[in-house]
């Protein structure tokens, strides 16, 4: 068998951590190769080294049997390598066409030859059934289409090796299926694909071969048909793991949060939330499923007091929170795990102990007359770090240096330490590895079992399905469906999430 990519003994160090430790990986030409591992296992670093973003400290790279020196992404593009990053590298205000040709423009007498280029791209798109609207601005497109633009961008640069970093992280089930169709098509046409992921069902569904990384090393490599999700998961984590969340039946009590006729019109006059009604009772987890950008962010911001709804009421234990400043909302008995931990949840330049009191810093226990009580802050940190297994176990570690999973644990620890009646958890395990996810899920369920009401908002359907006791679907600012239990197929949810099924108005009145 011929190899498209051979990485031999790649080692890459960052300061004191070894991101890739003598990694050897061979990818057969014309195959789909999955590269899996937990966050921080070194998958992305390895691929970004191949793509020329990093230089390895040692090791060799061979492309189609020829040893190459890749010093920059330009070099790797020249070698026919394309990469679709987890966060798209597109210019939102430019059109699709402009984005595709950016940096590789065809010119005629120093002017762009758009007509000719446009023809070429259309031909290329047709060949791989990648339909994209060439003249629309990227900012007006959904993420699924933006991703196709990224793929087309790589193909336009004559890539025959395509690296995709967590490509389904932002997609709906339907979009993911569509993407996999495209990937199969690309494979048919002889392209080689490396898929970085930590979703095991995807590995099983699409890949020919899978390599598992842990702590910078390749710990296993198998042909996909010969392995199982359980085996892969254990290799990733290094110990037996529970892929299914274990939880008992919900012991539902009185409603804690009741939202009625909630609407929100943003500053531009766009109606983001339309007459939303639902409630969450103590002892239950209500999951909200939906494609990102359908009003989830604003719904959470309304509940937590970060923005003021246009109309409607949000009552927490009978108290209407609308119009309360954030601090008073918290004091009314709410905890909030924000969707974007770096933007809202953490001060990354602060130490862990300073982050662990954000929002709780006005509490008496942390303050004496003039100054803050440093011993109390330190003690609080030590207790929470231990309880939530935050690593490193150093209250003075700077939050920026923690892995995504540990940063998230800091936030979860802080918010659960409020001991609030209602927990609003937005994307609680986004970018968190299997081990961390397992831990966070268990923490959330144990809060539920203590009688807390949990509102879970997640773009990860597996998470919504496995944690929730009831599931609401949000589409275009409306709750289009509330399922009384979690026994529903992903594909069925997907239909509601994309507005194919469900009439908003009827459902939200129901």
């Amino acid at each position, binding site marked *: 068998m011929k190899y498209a990519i051979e990485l031999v003994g790649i080692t890459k160090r960052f*300061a*004191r951590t070894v991101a890739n430790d003598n990694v050897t990986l061979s990818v057969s030409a014309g195959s789909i190769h999955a590269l899996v591992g937990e966050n921080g296992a070194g998958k992305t670093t390895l691929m970004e080294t191949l793509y020329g973003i990093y230089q390895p400290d040692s090791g060799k790279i061979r492309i189609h049997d020829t040893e190459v020196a890749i010093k920059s992404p330009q070099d790797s593009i020249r070698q026919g390598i394309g990469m679709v990053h987890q966060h798209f590298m597109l210019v939102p205000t430019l059109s699709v066409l402009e984005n595709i040709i950016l940096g590789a423009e065809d010119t005629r007498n120093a002017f762009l030859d758009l007509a000719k280029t446009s023809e070429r791209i259309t031909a290329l798109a047709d060949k791989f059934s990648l339909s994209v609207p060439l003249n629309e601005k990227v900012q007006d497109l959904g993420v699924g289409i933006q991703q196709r633009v990224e793929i087309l961008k790589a193909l336009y640069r004559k890539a025959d090796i395509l690296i995709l970093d967590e490509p389904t992280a932002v997609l709906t089930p339907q979009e993911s299926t569509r993407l996999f169709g495209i990937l199969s098509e690309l494979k048919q046409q002889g392209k080689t694909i490396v898929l970085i992921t930590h979703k095991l069902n995807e590995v099983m569904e699409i890949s020919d071969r899978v390599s598992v990384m842990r702590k910078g090393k390749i710990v296993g490599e198998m042909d996909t048909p010969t392995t199982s999700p359980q085996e892969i998961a254990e290799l990733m984590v290094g110990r037996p793991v529970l892929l299914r969340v274990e939880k008992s039946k919900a012991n539902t009590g009185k409603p804690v949060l009741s939202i009625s006729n909630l609407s929100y019109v943003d500053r531009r006059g766009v109606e983001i939330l339309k007459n939303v009604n639902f409630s969450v009772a103590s002892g239950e987890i209500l999951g909200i499923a939906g494609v990102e950008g359908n009003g989830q962010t604003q719904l959470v911001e309304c509940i*937590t007091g*970060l923005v003021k709804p246009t109309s409607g009421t949000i009552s927490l234990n009978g108290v209407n929170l609308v119009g309360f*400043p*954030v*601090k*008073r*909302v*918290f004091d009314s008995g709410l905890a*909030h795990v*924000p969707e974007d931990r770096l*933007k*809202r*949840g*953490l*001060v*990354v*330049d*602060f130490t862990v102990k*300073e982050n662990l009191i*954000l*929002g709780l*810093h*006005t509490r008496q226990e*942390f*303050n004496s007359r*003039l*100054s*803050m009580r*440093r011993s109390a802050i330190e003690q609080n940190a030590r207790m929470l770090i231990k309880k939530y297994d935050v690593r*490193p176990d*150093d209250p003075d*570690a700077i939050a920026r240096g923690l892995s995504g999973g540990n940063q998230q644990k800091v936030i979860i620890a802080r918010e659960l330490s409020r001991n609030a009646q209602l927990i609003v958890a937005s994307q609680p395990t986004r970018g968190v590895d299997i081990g961390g996810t397992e831990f966070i899920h268990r923490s959330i369920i144990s809060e539920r079992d203590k009688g807390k009401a949990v509102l879970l908002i997640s773009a990860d359907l597996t998470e919504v399905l496995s944690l929730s006791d009831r599931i609401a679907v949000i589409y275009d600012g409306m709750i289009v469906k509330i399922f009384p239990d979690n026994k529903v197929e992903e594909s069925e949810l997907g239909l509601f999430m994309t507005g194919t099924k469900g009439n908003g108005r009827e459902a939200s009145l129901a």
Partner: protein
Amino acid sequence: MAEKRHWLEHSITQNFFVPVLAVVLSFAVGAIFIAIVGQNPIEVYYVLFSQTLGNEYGIGQLLFKTTPLIFAGLSVAICFKAGLFNIGAEGQLQIGAFATALVGMYTFGVPAFIEIPLLVLAGIVGGGIWGFIPGYLKAKTGAHEVINTIMLNFVALALVSYFATNIYNVPATVHTPSIAPTGRIPRFDVFFSGFEGSPVNFSILIAIVAAIFVWYYIDRTRPGYELRVVGLNAKAAEFGGINVARNLILSMTIGGALAGLVGTNYVMGYKYYFEEGFSTGTGFMGIAVALLGNNNPFGVILAALLFGMLEYGGLVINTMVPKELVSILQAIVIIFVISSNKIFRKTLVNYMKTRTLSVNQ
């Protein structure tokens, strides 16, 4: 992480080491310029250091120049901690110093233990108001504080210059009448004869107290915690129930008040009146001082000492080299410090890495 770290890896040593390295290197580059104008750099530097640090008079002059730089540096630093760039220290110190002089000239007969705090307070209030305005505009309208503080500098300068030359001036001068004698802050030479002739006075103690206050406030108090959250991540502050607008206003007001204290040195400790043009860009030097001091109050003191030395040293070596050379030297220090942070830190870390690697092998 029980692993033992190389000493250079600690941010504290880096924060100290990097600026010091930058200063040393800038002196080396300055030597080239001295050589270009045909002087011997070693001789010039010898005179520079011996005349500023070598005798009490020189030290007195140096400290006299340092005091206002500490106030201005603290002013910029505390705003920076809240994520604001205060270019307005110059205007704030003009208003503050003028307020001190104004109150001082109308309060004759008040005992010193009331008069001195009163005049200090006048400076705080004057500067504070001038900091509050751009802070309020930033918080309520989003108007950028850089533009507004620059504009308010012009307004402040024009205002005090008008009042100091037309309304409250001693006829045929550009200064106000003297403040009440009880409002005077004693000079060093009253107690230590070695400082004879130098205007250095005990307002430098106020500057040091101010630095301790700023450190304690930022590092130890709850409002200081909130201010830092706002400066590092306003979205997270919002999330944590912190009133961002109030913190922006507060930090600019405190910043203005700190700059307003400059009058203690000049008005209360030196001339005993306000004079048009008394500050030659002290507020702007404050930016460099804060930068070199890494926005740390004690770093600010050290940086102010360096710039104070350069300012007075410039006068000392005036006969040997053109006075522009001192400006060049100051500028080089600033440029080195600004660009050093990244470059030197990286070099240091690399150096340390190769060392630990070779130790491990």
